[in-house]
């Protein structure tokens, strides 16, 4: 029996995604092994005696070949054991658990605002293509994508927190806060993240819809005398869904990375800050774990983009 091509394509994509995840874990592991010294040296410092170093290496299993250590690490990570932090001995999985929730909260709030806004702005820009609304939207978004996240963060902080005192400049959140208080606390980082991805997303949405606007059926709709907005919403947009969804997913993946920097700017207790802090302290287990999680989220979102664009393509869903 022939397998439906959509099922086949999707299985391929998912398998490829899993393979990528595995390969990414290898890459992250290798990335932390290329240093001249080793972890034992990093913990004990330059002045450690050779005997102490040897004991430490023995205790940490550093005398095993690299691939054995990799398999141990990966096996433990799959069981939810991400090892202990070198600097304070705390369980990495536990520390990440709390922070991952915070990071997700920040990213989801930003995405919920950014995605509809970007699509609506993209539609408006196409409707008034070449006229002032289009130029205004394009100009402003060009400016926001030309500035790195952290600078945008300080510009927003300077204007909104210091000059006009609309929101706190430091986003501390804790469990006892109500949802409203939390949202107020993270207002500024959310604004920055929205600005960062909005630009890319809106420009790419605009390009995707403009591409469809060249088709013959759009011309037909125009000649029928339909209202311009109706043409875009009914005829052009449904056919642009696949590229638009792709754009949205890519930008959500980008959001995951943008979060790292924005968290540092606003001192937000999330994973990004945790990662950056521990890179500076050379705390390898934490960095590996955070790197793996960020890479996994990034890869999953990219695979999801592939899968959704397959599903959104009627030619693939209804093969001849």
């Amino acid at each position, binding site marked *: 029996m022939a397998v439906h091509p959509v099922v086949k394509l999707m299985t391929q994509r998912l398998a490829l995604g899993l393979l*990528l995840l595995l*390969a*990414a874990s290898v*890459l*992250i592991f290798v*990335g*932390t*092994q*290329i*240093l001249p010294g080793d972890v034992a040296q*990093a913990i004990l410092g330059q002045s450690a005696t050779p005997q102490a170093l040897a004991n430490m290496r023995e205790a940490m299993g550093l005398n095993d070949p690299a691939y054995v250590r990799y398999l141990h690490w990966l096996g433990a990570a799959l069981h939810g054991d991400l090892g202990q932090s070198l600097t304070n001995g705390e369980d990495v999985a536990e520390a990440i658990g709390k922070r991952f929730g915070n990071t997700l909260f920040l990213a989801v709030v930003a995405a919920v605002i950014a995605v509809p806004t970007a699509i609506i702005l993209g539609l408006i820009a196409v409707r008034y293509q070449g006229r002032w609304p289009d130029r205004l939207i394009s100009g402003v978004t*060009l*400016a926001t994508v*030309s*500035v*790195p*996240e*952290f*600078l*945008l963060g*300080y*510009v927003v*902080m*300077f204007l909104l*927190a*210091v*000059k006009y005192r609309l929101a706190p*400049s430091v986003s501390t959140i804790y469990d006892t806060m109500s949802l409203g208080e939390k949202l107020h606390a993270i207002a500024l980082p959310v604004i920055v993240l929205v600005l960062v991805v909005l630009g890319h997303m809106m420009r790419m949405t605009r390009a995707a819809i403009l591409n469809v606007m060249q088709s013959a059926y759009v011309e037909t709709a125009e000649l029928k005398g339909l209202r311009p907005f109706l043409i875009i919403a009914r005829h052009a947009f449904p056919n642009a869904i696949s590229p638009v969804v792709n754009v949205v997913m890519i930008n959500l*993946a980008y959001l*995951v*990375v943008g979060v*790292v*920097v924005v968290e*540092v*700017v606003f001192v937000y207790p999330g994973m990004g800050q945790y*990662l*950056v802090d*521990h*890179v*500076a302290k*050379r*705390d*390898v287990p934490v*960095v*590996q774990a*955070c*790197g793996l999680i*960020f*890479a996994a989220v*990034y*890869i999953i979102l*990219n695979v999801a983009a592939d899968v959704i664009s397959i599903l959104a393509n009627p030619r693939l869903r209804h093969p001849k």
Partner: protein
Amino acid sequence: MSRIPVSALIGLGFTGLYFFVAIFAGWIAPYGMAEVVGGVWEPSSSQSWLGTDSIGRDLLSRMIYGGRTTIAVAAAATVLSFVIGSILGLTAAVLGGWVDQVLSRGVDLVMAIPTLIFALVVLSVMPVTLPILILVMGLLDSTRVFRLSRAVAVDITVMDYIEAARLRGEGGGWIVFREILPNALSPLVAEMGLRFIFAVLFISTLSFLGLGVQPPLADWGGIVKENKDGIVYGIPAALYPAIAIATLAISVNLVADWVLGRTSSLKGGRGG
């Protein structure tokens, strides 16, 4: 040289200005890079046009020296990424077969991990020095260059003149450097501008996170880091690098657009 559009001229002017200031930083900057000239966060005055920074150094001088570091690191990383990326990309396109497969899948893999995350992972174990930074940035960025140069070169390798060169008995080196490279140059040059900007943003981000250029050396990201506490007191010292980076980014973009547009019209492109 035919007519250059105004936008490209503005872009060229600003880009040139930034590079000029970066190269001659030592002569242009009114004070030394680490010289303390006044109190903490003094407002701008006739002595120091942009005021002073968190420990009383002249901010304008810091910005000029910082621009030199930022631009030099970004330029070096871009050149490195182009040398590695384009050579490997063209080689993959010319040789095809398993070489192409191995290189392309390897690049896919590296690109599957966000650049910043990967850089942070590597920098957690490497000593953070300028050569290491340039190497890490250049290698990570070369994956993007590889993609582009391979895509461009694949279109060119099927041309008749490449076949003619092969039949003449030219070696792989000749085909890559004398036949393909000149024809692939314009999209690569335009891309170079964009990669350079990306490198500027990237090194600034790393420095801001404290994992890039290390003090006492100045760079734009580091200036933000040093002066960020002033923001809360309404001192805009940390915002000057934003203006510098944004104007540099926009002007290089304008030049890249022009290069791309100019060469596509040379090929008899539609609509002039």
